[in-house]
Each structure stands twice: as C-alpha cells, then as structure tokens.
C-alpha cells in the first residue's frame, strides 16, 4: 500500500512489483512509476516523446 503522489489516495501494489513498473492511481488516474523496491517508492511517470522507429 502506498500513497499517490498526486492525490494522496491509497494505491494498491501488485503481488510481485517490478522496478519501473507503471501503475495507475484508482482515484485520480495518474500514471505512477515504481522508482525503488524495499522500500517501495513511487513517483509520477514522466511524459515522454514516442519515437516509434528504432
């Protein structure tokens, strides 16, 4: 369980959280990124430019 950095609502963590995993806040729908594990910390997932050709 962790608090959404945008709206402070409780956010459920998956059973096996992964580093850099993207979650969605159930309340405000902000996209969050798991920035570390043990302790589990999240931040707002950044907006990035999509370059669809690699």
């Amino acid at each position: 369980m962790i608090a959404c950095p945008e709206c402070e609502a409780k956010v459920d963590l998956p059973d096996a959280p992964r580093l850099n995993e993207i979650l969605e806040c159930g309340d405000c729908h902000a996209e969050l990124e798991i920035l570390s594990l043990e302790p589990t910390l999240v931040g707002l997932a950044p907006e990035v430019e999509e370059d669809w050709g690699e």
Partner: protein
Amino acid sequence: MTDITVVKCGGNASVEVDEVCADVATLRGRGAEVILVHGGSADIERLAARLGVPSRQVVAPDGVPARYTDPAMLEVVTLALAGMSKPRLLASLAAREVPAVGLTGLDAGLLRARRKAAHRAVVDGVRVMVRDNQVGTITAVNAGLLRTLLDAGLVPVISPPALAEDGRPVNVNADRVAAAVAAAVGAARLVMLTGAPGVLADVADPDSVLPVVELSPNEPPAHRAGGMGLKLIAAREALTAGVPETLIADGRRPRPVTAALDGAATTVV
C-alpha cells in the same frame, strides 16, 4: 565526383558473406567505391544463447515488438558484431585481395547517436518505464574518416554500436546506419540486401516482389510485414537526405549487389 555504393548486408551466413564479398570485389574491379555496412542478428542470437544472456523484447504502445538491448545484451551485440560478423567479412574480403578496414561507431566517433529517452513499453508482460534500453538513433557520421579510407583505396566495413552523447556505446539499427552513412558521404546508391526476394506485396508469396515501392514522407510505410518496416524507414531516411537511388534486394543469391543494380530488386521512391 564520388560514385559511392553503400551495401547493407546481414553478415551471418558464410555463403552469403562470400557471395557479397565476391560481388564487392567485382564492383571494385570496375572502379567503383564501396562501403559495406553489416548487422549480424544470427551471430548475436547464437552468442547470447551460448553466454546465457536472454533475448528480451520491448513491446511499444503501438504493439510493435523490438529488441530490448539491456546492458548485458549490449555487450553481446558488440562482441558478436565486432568479434564475429566483422572478422568473417574481413577474412572473406582479404581472401579476394580487397583491402578493407573494419569499423564500429566507436572508431573516431564514426557514428554518434542520441540515446533513446525513457519510454513506456510492455516487458515480460508487465507495463514499465524502460530506462536501461541501450539504444539510440544516429545523429552524426564522421564522413571525413570514410573519405580518408576511400581515398586510400580501402573498403570501410561498418557496424553498430554507436557512441552516445555520454561517450558510452549504444546499439543502433544497422539498416538506419547504412542510410545515415549513405547520406553523409553523398553516396550514389544504397543497396539493402535481405533474406527475402525484395519487398513483397504478399509476404506469403515469394513471387510477389514489388518492382517499386512509393513511400510518403510522413506516414508509416505500407508493406511493413516480414521485418520490412525498419528497412523502409531507413530507405526513406536515405532518400530524404538526398541519396538518389535506394534498393531492397535478395542477398541470398550469387552476385547479389550486381543483380540488384541490374534491376532484380525493389526500388524505393
């Protein structure tokens, strides 16, 4: 006035390697200047398997999968391309008395790239922010180095990796390297050899080679199936940058480049 032909090949199977190198020798015999750009996906996959490095994929939001070059895989890419694919090509050229010099983007900043920014993708079924994908897009080519080597009568043999802005190596797409090189040296033509007869109207029908494919400057290319998408993007980049002629042709036959230049290819416009 230069008349440079840039040839992009796979670099893996020894039969193809010998056929491409024999054709390069023929072209040079006629006075042409040639630059060879190569990948080596089969060498990469085989070496990754031998070293126990998993081949991972990132799936972009549009559903297109691409290689996930994590740091372990970047080491394998460099090892395979510089340590296996390139020596195989160089030995084949040496056997045909073609003086060639092997290069990657790390040689005198030959290929500089912008590191791909963090992006959303699905990896191993989980939606993540991908931050350690060691890939980039070419931003500059050291054309002066290539000119020096060509003037000395040498064939440059070029592959990834490239040098990112922080000075560390990154993986780049070899077809797009070929396009960037062709543009930078003002090549007369770019010939991309592939494991198919050309761009196919119907991927399941090897006789459905399109003699010409027309690309629009802005939209995703049609005929993207069968791995052609990135080759068509690369072709467009070359054409946009002024390379007059860009062909996609079958690399699995004798004299593959000569045959392509004689017309047995898909011309991209």
